[in-house]
């Protein structure tokens, strides 16, 4: 690691008395390149070597398009449900004191900690036609397990903490005086919440939504059990990758993966953009 800190003009790092810059950054970069970048680059390189026409025909295959549509559609629906209920849960946790609040707060992280396969079989068992919840819904003509609705249920489970944990800290920072200011200006509680508080939380809610959505699009373990995996109906894109791999159809698998990666990176970019925009304009993200 060349130390250029005494060079004049453009400096790529500022001088510091703390040692270990070369070692720590060198190790970080090597490990990053070895574990993350080379494998990802391998995928991109192999996909690129397919050539654009081949890639385009693989990507526009109707089963692929349907799988992508299902993945993005269900992830969007689940993220939307989570945005609504996640905000309510966060509000209740931040604002109200009730017996068991700490316990509920801790429980919100369950989807982070519970292996997805376990969540998948548990949700499937609950929502299957004879399951605890499914048995109540079947007479009403509502089928959840083995339909796209089942996928949405699994993705709600997976995505909930993303919204709650993104919104909660911002909610905690709300200055009580802002609410009092709204009240002294004549706003009733409803107006204060919908015109002052929620719009102020909007960047955080949007970020939480985007995180839950991004996670939902790529989710595999919790979904495949409950989805039923019927091609064109309830087959998600990650599963299609696995199926193509099992058929040794590597090009098709790589094509689906590449589309998903590109969309994920665009999502990531958008999330960063939202936060930068919000920080610049409102002074918080």
């Amino acid at each position, binding site marked *: 690691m060349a130390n250029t800190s005494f060079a004049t003009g453009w400096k790529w790092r500022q001088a510091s008395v703390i040692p270990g810059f070369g070692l720590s950054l060198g190790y970080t970069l090597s490990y990053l390149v070895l*574990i993350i970048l080379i494998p990802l680059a391998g995928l991109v390189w192999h996909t690129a070597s397919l050539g654009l026409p081949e890639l385009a025909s693989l990507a526009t295959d109707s089963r692929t398009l349907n799988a992508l549509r299902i993945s993005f559609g269900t992830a969007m629906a689940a993220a939307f449900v989570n945005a609504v209920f996640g905000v309510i*849960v966060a509000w209740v946790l931040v604002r109200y004191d009730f017996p068991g609040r700490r316990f509920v707060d801790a429980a919100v992280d369950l989807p982070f*900690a519970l292996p997805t396969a*376990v969540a998948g079989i548990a949700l499937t068992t609950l929502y299957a036609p004879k399951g605890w919840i499914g048995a109540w819904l079947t007479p009403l003509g509502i089928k959840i397990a083995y339909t796209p609705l089942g996928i949405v249920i699994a993705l709600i489970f997976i995505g909930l903490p993303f919204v709650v944990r993104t919104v909660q800290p911002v909610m905690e920072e709300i200055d009580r005086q802002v609410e009092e200011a709204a009240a002294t200006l004549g706003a009733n509680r409803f107006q204060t919440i919908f015109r002052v508080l929620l719009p102020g939380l909007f960047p955080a809610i949007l970020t939480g939504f985007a995180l839950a959505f991004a996670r939902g699009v790529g989710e595999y373990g919790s979904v495949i059990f409950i989805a039923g995996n019927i091609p064109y109906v309830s087959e998600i894109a990650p599963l299609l990758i696995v199926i193509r791999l099992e058929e040794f159809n590597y090009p098709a698998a790589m094509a689906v993966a590449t589309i*998903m990666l590109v969309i994920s990176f665009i999502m990531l970019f958008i999330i960063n953009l939202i936060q930068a925009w919000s920080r610049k304009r409102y002074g918080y993200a």
Partner: protein
Amino acid sequence: MATLDHSNAAAAPRFRDAATEPPGAKFALILIAILFLAFFLALPLVSVFFEAFRKGPEAFWEAISEPDALAAIRLTLLVAVIAVPLNLVFGVAAAWAIAKFEFKGKAFLITLIDLPFSVSPVISGLVFVVLFGTHSVLGPILNSYGIEILFAVPGIVLATVFVTFPFVARELIPLMQEQGSGDEEAALSLGASGWQAFWYVTVPNIRWGLLYGVLLCNARAMGEFGAVSVVSGHIRGVTNTMPLHVEILYNEYNVSAAFAVATLLAGLALVTLGLKTVLELRFGAGNAGGRH
């Protein structure tokens, strides 16, 4: 001043706290939140334990003590024992470089570290299939030396390391940025060497955050399904981790056994949550925020 007349004071003063909702709305919101969480979080968890013991404790015990299950448990532990320390060392190095120094491209580096969070687990597995598969450049070469990566333990470890890559770094970077370099500078000015400053000053400062990151990293390492599923090849007793074993049992309609093994993973999740909560309450480690 007629209004000072006390007959008027009989009317109870109307007061409403400007920053809370009326009790009815409050109660309704708490109820909605609790019901939502009960349906989506508590019920699935309860059903895991219920289904596991549906056929009695003997069946449960049998399911988790048969050789294939034990092999899966061993493999899961082995993978975690390798993957977690690797990412721990990386996390500390990355946080040190990012938090203690100012250099160009830092924000980009942080984005790269976060990358695995935005990649589908299946794709995380796929990249290693592409890299080491029979059609790749590396795969056949390694094979000729008798080194198996894919459908073998090294592949599972690699996929797990990939997926759990950001966990420790993600906890430590904000923590160390907040703490700054003052303590280390003081130690250096008192004659400590760089390593002494690190061991005697930095490590005690970050130990709870470190533990927190390790905890989350471990939970994901042991529970990872998608990535591992792609590279494992599902060879019973050889390349099956616990989550994969759960899947196989479930697909064989051996539901009770699947849930029995699942209880072990659910137990891991509960222990993780419990320790995490204790760490947060006692030491204010992490904020549980973000993208796990």
